[in-house]
């Protein structure tokens, strides 16, 4: 039915396009001078139909579900739905939906079958009503645009206004996305903090998100203290940066100062490949090659190293970040004015001395900005740690141990879970909120640093 509605929309728009064009041409052939070209009259008709009707269809599709569900719930007989806890209410609705979809498990109670019939009925009605209203609105708009065709009608301006509105909408989508992120994280986080106090979340030192399955179960109470998780994240980030910063800076210095132009021309793109490889590939590389290698090495010198040591995840993440740091350092070094470099060389400093003592200090704000962006990257990086780091939150700074990170916890808490009403799944959104805020602050700060520094020398 949805396809039919879209089809009607397109057909009417096309019809309006052709009709308006013919009408405009007829005026033109009649010897009158048109204000706008016939093609603008045609386009006006098409856009006037397409835009509102498209909004109508999408709005209908988004809104019909809650409306239908509330009508369904209202129709259920007394005492079958109202008294139930939220989880069971959802189960009842899901069962009715699956019966309506044709999958019946066992023999459901007759009122459920009845409700399923009613649900199917409602859906059919909604679809029919949507198609009918789409057709009506589309035809109405087409007639409206046809009525406007005249020699004096400013169709081009009309079209341009619509196009401008569309483009404005496009650029607002970026803001809507941010609002959507904040809203979705905030709503679920607030629900989480109703169950777990904020102070416990921020200052607790135990992270044990396993929840009791029954009310009377005592064994697992669940603890949501972010500190061990945050510590693990910081540990892996530091490990990654201690690989990426030296290697990235040295490659940038070498490519900028010592390499021949030809070598640089192929070495830079090859280095960039490192950042184009999907992170899941690095994750698999970490468990396939790096972690076993580290463990074997540890056995060789008599150390016991955990199978998912932070070292493997951090090291591989460092490899991924190398080109990131090296290209920021490269840009920062290249942005230092030539006069500084020439002055230093003229005083008799070697190239190396020039880089280390003159260019590098001048480039430090830019490089620091790049490193900060790399920090936010490392904190938000997910797949490498999901595959190579641990699941248990331990309060340790030993890189040979297994630690967990914020992103790992978000993934493990949410994969395979659909219910949004236990602290366990909601905790993932609270973690997401923390991750979003921390990376946002770092990013804003870093971008400002990079830009400000550029302005000084421009």
């Amino acid at each position, binding site marked *: 039915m949805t396809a039919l509605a879209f089809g009607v929309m397109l057909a009417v728009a096309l019809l309006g396009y052709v009709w308006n064009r013919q009408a405009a041409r007829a005026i033109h052939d009649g010897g009158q001078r048109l204000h706008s070209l016939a093609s603008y009259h045609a386009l006006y008709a098409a856009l006037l139909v397409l835009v509102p009707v498209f909004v109508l269809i999408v709005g209908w599709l988004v809104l019909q579900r809650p409306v239908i569900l509330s009508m369904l719930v209202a129709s259920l007989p007394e005492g079958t739905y109202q008294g139930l806890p939220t989880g069971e209410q959802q189960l009842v609705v899901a069962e009715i939906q699956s019966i309506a979809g044709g999958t019946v498990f066992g023999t459901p109670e007759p009122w459920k079958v009845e409700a399923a019939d009613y649900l199917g009925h409602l859906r059919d009605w909604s679809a029919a009503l949507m198609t009918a209203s789409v057709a009506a609105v589309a035809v109405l708009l087409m007639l409206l645009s046809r009525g406007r065709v005249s020699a004096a009608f400013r169709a081009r301006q009309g079209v341009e206004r619509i196009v401008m509105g569309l483009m404005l909408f496009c650029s*607002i989508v970026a803001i809507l996305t941010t609002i959507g992120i904040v809203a979705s994280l905030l709503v679920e986080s607030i629900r989480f903090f109703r169950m777990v106090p904020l102070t416990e979340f921020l200052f607790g030192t135990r992270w044990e998100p396993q929840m009791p399955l029954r009310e009377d179960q005592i064994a697992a109470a669940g603890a949501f203290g972010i500190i061990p998780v945050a510590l693990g994240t910081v540990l892996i980030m530091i490990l990654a940066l201690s690989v990426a910063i030296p*290697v990235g800076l040295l490659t940038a210095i070498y490519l900028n100062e010592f390499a021949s132009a030809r070598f640089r021309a192929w070495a830079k793109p090859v280095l960039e490949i490192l950042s184009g490889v999907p992170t*899941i590939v690095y994750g698999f590389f970490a468990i396939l090659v790096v972690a076993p290698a580290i463990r074997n090495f540890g056995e060789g010198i008599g150390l016991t190293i955990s199978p998912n040591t932070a070292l493997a995840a951090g090291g591989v993440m460092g490899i991924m970040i190398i080109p990131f740091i090296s290209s920021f350092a490269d840009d920062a070094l290249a942005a230092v004015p030539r006069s500084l470099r020439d002055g230093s060389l003229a005083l008799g400093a070697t190239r190396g001395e020039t880089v280390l003592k003159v260019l590098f200090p001048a480039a430090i704000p830019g490089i620091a900005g790049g490193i900060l962006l790399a920090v936010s990257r490392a904190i938000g990086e997910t797949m490498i740690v999901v595959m190579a780091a641990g699941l248990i939150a331990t309060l340790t700074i030993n890189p040979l141990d297994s630690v967990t990170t914020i992103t790992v916890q978000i993934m493990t808490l*949410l994969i395979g879970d659909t219910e949004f009403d236990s602290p366990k799944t909601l905790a993932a959104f609270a973690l997401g909120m923390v991750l979003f805020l921390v990376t946002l602050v770092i990013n804003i700060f870093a971008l400002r640093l990079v830009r400000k520094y550029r302005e000084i020398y421009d």
Partner: protein
Amino acid sequence: MAETLEISGLPGRPSTMETIRGSLAARRRRETGLKAAGLVALGFAFTMLGLVFLSLIGTGYHAFTQTHVTLDVYVDPEMISEERLPRGDFDDAVEAGLAERVGGVESKAERRALAKLLSDGAQFALRDMVVADPGLIGQRVTLTVPTSDSFDQLNKGLIDRATPEENRRVTDQQIAWFDALDEAGAISAPFNRWLFTNNDSRFPEQAGLRGALTGTFWVLLICFAISFPLGIGAAIYLEEFAPKGRMSDLIEVNINNLAAVPSVVFGLLGLAMFIGWFGMPRSAPIVGGLTLSLMTLPTIIIATRAALKAVPPSIREAALGGGASNQQAVFGHILPLAMPGIMTGTIIGMAQAIGETAPLLLVGMNAFVTSAAASPFESATTLPTQIYIWADSPERGFVSRTSAAILVLLGFLVVMNLLAIILRRRFERQW
């Protein structure tokens, strides 16, 4: 020259030249040291890159062939009758064929051990044949069927025959049977086209990428269909029409920050908003595509703005001078000239999207799906999430499958990036 310029210092103190000369050796050493350190760092980065690719190719190339065994099977009318099709004891028939081929297998236990050579999918090969042509019942057919994962590994030399029998997944007796079959020429290892035509499976030898490839196709299609027009529209507005002021500054900062938001946060957005609030189906490419399109949007906007900026103002001035309206100048003259740059940026954005895993896992695209999605509303996996599923599977055969799937993914990335480079080389204009 240095000799003639010698300036003698104060008595008892070394001259400047002497100081310089004295430190020169150390300074040169430091210079060489820095250079060497730079080279070592570069070498480290290149070695790691090489190691990533070599380890993937080294484990992945095995999965591009699949060990098969060729059998003569008697389609026994007692086991398989036309009335019961498509049901029937196809497994018994295939096992009987294998036992006959090997010979000397009497006891039930032995026969069971022998049957372990065959993939679970072998019987279905026979079933499909007989269903397609029921006239085969009562005749002998020659059948080439996949072996099970263990014997696939044995044939590829991934199982060490020297390990003691109890630590091995295949017994000495089974190895002997397999070797006998091999000597008789019944074992073959053709190119594994099933890797691309089969759907996912719990058995490594039957698992293929078809579902993941169609899922990736749907996700990318939706991602492109949404982010491309939205991205271009936003970029044109911001670059050409937006009044400079607080609003456009806000949008600008917003876009730059969105580009740096961790991908897992977009996954949370998709989960809470599209699935939780709008009630879209879990695991469906429509949700994955929508989520990824929001992620790709900033990339496309930034690339499009750069491409628009690169078109010289003289083009616009000429168009305006010729009587075009502002929009006519943009859509008729500036946009076409910026198109190659926009396409390059879009391809790079799509290449990022194709390897994105975390947000897709959060919207449930790691479901075990054994059929290819016919529409973006059905459950599906994508290449990266399939890689994640296989990497998590304990069976050894999935190690090489995972690497092979990664190689396929990297293959797509290489093609997309080459396309972007070619586009840039071919159509980029120097003004």
